C-alpha cells in the first residue's frame, strides 16, 4: 500500500520509455526475457522441468498413473494441468485455497495444452470406458516476477516432452504396471503460449511484474506447430482495439516460433 506512489512513478517512467520504443529492462517491445529450460529435475516424477523466464521461475512435474475415464469420454485418457503460486514465491501470496487469479492461470495453461491437442489422448486408453492413463501436469511457481501464464505453460510443455509413459497391462480387468518398459508421450504438436500486455497504445511481449502492475490489459495467445491460433484469453481491467488484437496474434506467432525451436530440442 505504501508503495502506491512508487508504483505510479514507475508507471510514468515505463510509459515514457515506451514512447521512445524502450522498456525498463532494456528489452525491445516484442522481446521476451531470457528463457532457460532444464528438464529431469524431479527424477521421481515421470517428467519434470524447471524453467526461468527472466526472474520468474517455475517447476513442473508430470505424474502418469492409471485412472478411470471421465463419463462420456471413455475413448480418451485423462489430462489435468494445475498451477500454484507457492507462498515462498511472492510476499503477497498466502497459503490457502486458490484465488480466482490462480484458478484462471491454471485453466489458461490447461486450455493451451488441451485445445492444441498436444497429447493424443486416444492413445492413452487401456480399456475403453473403463481404464485409461491419466497425465497430471502440476506447476509450482517458485519465484513470481511477471508473466506466470507463459512461464507455467513453457514448464508444462517441457515437462511433458521430457516424460516417459510407463506401460500398463490389463490383468483381471485392472491395470498392472509393467516394469522397465516406457514410451514417449504421444505428442502431436507443440503449443506455445505468448502473453502480451497493453500499456497505453503499446503492446509489449512477456510483461515483467513491474509492467503488469501498470498494464491496461493482457492477452495470452497459444499457437500450435502449424501456425494456427488455438487458445486465447484476454485479461485485465481494460480492453483492446481490433487492430491491437490482430497485431497480438501476429506477435504470438512470430515470438512463438523462437520458443518452439527450444521445445524441439527437447524432443
Amino acid at each position, binding site marked *: 500500500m505504501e508503495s*502506491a506512489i512508487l508504483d505510479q512513478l514507475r508507471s510514468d517512467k515505463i510509459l515514457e520509455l515506451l514512447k521512445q520504443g524502450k522498456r525498463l529492462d532494456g528489452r525491445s517491445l516484442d522481446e521476451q526475457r531470457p528463457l532457460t529450460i532444464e528438464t529431469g529435475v524431479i527424477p521421481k516424477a515421470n517428467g519434470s522441468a524447471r524453467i526461468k523466464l527472466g526472474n520468474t521461475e517455475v517447476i513442473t512435474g508430470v505424474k502418469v498413473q492409471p485412472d478411470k475415464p471421465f463419463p462420456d469420454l471413455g475413448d480418451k485418457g485423462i489430462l489435468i494441468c494445475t498451477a500454484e503460486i507457492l507462498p515462498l514465491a511472492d510476499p503477497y501470496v498466502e497459503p490457502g485455497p486458490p484465488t*480466482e*487469479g490462480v*484458478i*484462471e492461470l*491454471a*485453466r489458461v495453461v490447461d*486450455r493451451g495444452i488441451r*485445445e*492444441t*491437442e498436444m497429447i493424443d489422448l486416444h492413445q492413452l486408453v487401456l480399456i475403453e470406458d473403463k481404464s485409461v492413463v491419466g497425465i497430471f501436469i502440476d506447476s509450482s511457481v517458485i519465484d513470481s516476477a511477471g508473466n506466470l501464464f507463459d512461464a507455467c505453460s513453457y514448464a508444462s510443455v517441457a515437462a511433458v516432452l521430457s516424460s516417459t509413459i510407463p506401460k500398463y497391462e490389463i490383468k483381471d480387468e485392472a491395470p498392472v504396471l509393467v516394469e522397465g518398459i516406457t514410451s514417449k508421450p504421444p505428442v502431436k504438436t507443440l503449443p506455445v503460449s505468448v502473453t502480451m500486455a497493453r500499456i497505453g497504445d503499446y503492446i509489449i511481449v512477456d510483461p515483467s511484474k513491474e509492467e503488469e502492475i501498470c498494464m491496461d490489459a493482457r*492477452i495470452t495467445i497459444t499457437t*500450435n506447430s502449424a*501456425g*494456427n*491460433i*488455438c*487458445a*486465447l*484469453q*484476454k*485479461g*485485465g*481491467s*481494460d*480492453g*483492446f*482495439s*481490433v487492430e491491437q*488484437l*490482430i497485431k497480438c*496474434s*501476429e506477435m504470438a*506467432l512470430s515470438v512463438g516460433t523462437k520458443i518452439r525451436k527450444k521445445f524441439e530440442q527437447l524432443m
Partner: protein
Amino acid sequence: MKIMTQLMTEDGIRCDGRRVDQLRNISIKVGVLKNADGSAYIEFGKNKILAGVFGPRDVHPKHMANQDTGILRCRYHMSPFSVTERKNPAPSRREIEISKVLKEALQPALILKDFPRTVIDVFVEVLQADGGSRCAALDAAAVALADAGIPMRDLVSACAAGKVADRIVLDVNNEEDQEGQADMPVAIMPNVGKVTLMQLDGILTTEEYKTCLQTAIGGCRTVYEIQRKALVEKYFESGDK
C-alpha cells in the same frame, strides 16, 4: 466426420436452422427484480439468465475496501437444474474463472474512481444454459448495471463466433460448442470501440481468426441494439419508474 455433416447442411444451414451469420433469438427484460438495485433477464437462444446489481454500497469485509476507488465484484453461477446433468450448487473452477472474465469485461465501462471505498456487486444466475452463456450473462449484466443507475462510459455487448464444419459462424449454440472446431466469445464497448472480453478454444488459421473476430463483433453490435431497445422501452416508453 459424421458430426460435421450433422452440424451443417450443404446449403450452410446449421443444426438449429440458422444461417452462418444469424443470431439466435434474443429478448431482454429490464428491472425484473424488486430487491436488486438493477436487474435484467435475458433469453439468448435457450439460455435463460438473470442478472442483479447492488451498489455502489459499503464493502464487507471492510478491509477489502479501497480508499482510492470503488471495486467491482462479479459472480457467475449456474443453477443446479440449468444443465443436462444436475450441477452441484457449489461454485466450480469454471464458474470462478468466468466470474473473473466477466468482471474484467465490465470494468472498463464503469467509472469506479468516482465511488471510492464502495463496491458494485454483479450477480449472474444461469437458470438454463446453452452455448454462449457467458456472453448472454454479460449482456444481461451490462443492462442490469445501467438499470441500477450506475454511471457508465458505454454498454458492454457480447456475442460469440466460432468455426463449425469448416466455416466461421456467428453465435455458437450448445451442439456447435461441444462438437464444433472453435468457439470465440467476444465482448465490446460498442461506442468506445474496445474489445473487453475475448477468449478462444479451438483451432483457427490467422485468416479465420480475423474473420471470426469481425463476425463476433458484428454480432455484438446487433446485441447492442437489443440491449438499447430494452432499456429505452423501460425508461422512455412505458413512462414509469
